[in-house]
């Protein structure tokens, strides 16, 4: 059967790297990262329902440097996927598909994701009283 091993798109090797392509790949990568994050959300909710003893180690883990690093990564992933997702929804209306607009949208989505991530973490640390 010749159909077994046909090459399938996307062909990552044959294109010259460019911004809009990076945005698309990053959208996927952050989507996969967020799927792992959803696993953490499920663990967090299950531990919460199981009681205080079960919740304590999950709560403690998320406070460690590794837990915070993961939460930071998921925050940026969510903000990027959200901003770039809105870009996709705008494209679905038929707008913003010309090259200059697609490029401008790419810069805007990255900028928005960085600003929102910073805002979330400044807000989080403010809640712990880190700035007072």
């Amino acid at each position, binding site marked *: 059967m010749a159909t077994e091993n046909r090459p399938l798109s996307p062909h990552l090797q044959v294109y010259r790297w460019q911004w809009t392509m990076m945005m698309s790949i990053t959208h996927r990568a952050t989507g996969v990262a967020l799927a792992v994050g959803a696993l953490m959300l*499920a663990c967090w909710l299950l531990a919460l329902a199981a009681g205080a003893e079960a919740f304590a180690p999950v709560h403690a883990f998320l406070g460690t440097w590794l837990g915070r690093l993961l939460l930071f990564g998921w925050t940026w992933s969510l903000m990027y996927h959200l901003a770039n997702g809105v870009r996709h929804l705008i494209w679905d209306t038929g707008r913003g598909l010309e090259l200059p607009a697609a490029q401008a949208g790419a810069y805007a989505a990255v900028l928005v994701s960085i600003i929102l991530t910073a805002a979330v973490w400044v*807000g989080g640390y403010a809640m712990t009283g880190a700035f007072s």
Partner: protein
Amino acid sequence: MSLRTPLARVRGLGSAKDGTHHWWMQRVTAVALVPLSIWFVVSMIKLTGADHTAVTAWLATPATAVLMLLFIVATFYHLQLGMQVVIEDYVHGEAMKIACLMCVKLGSFALAVASAFSVLKVAF
């Protein structure tokens, strides 16, 4: 000129025999997740450092429980649609592809049910 048969065009199901259902549900859940994920992140900021008692009290209010259930449904529905496409693109062996798709579809459904049950247990 179209190379497709008139019957194929009338059915409008394309080569995947699925039409636009996957695409449409991805957009529907995406639109739902815009406000829901903003609500979730703002809630998590407010809950920074909160212990079991505080988080339980927060989740036990009806509005929070309902929003969390909606967030769970939209998240896991959107997740399995996205992961399906990633698997279909990168896992080329037919048996491995089906195994991965089964894992994602059944796994995300199980996690959604477990998460929703947890919310209800805390809320009631």
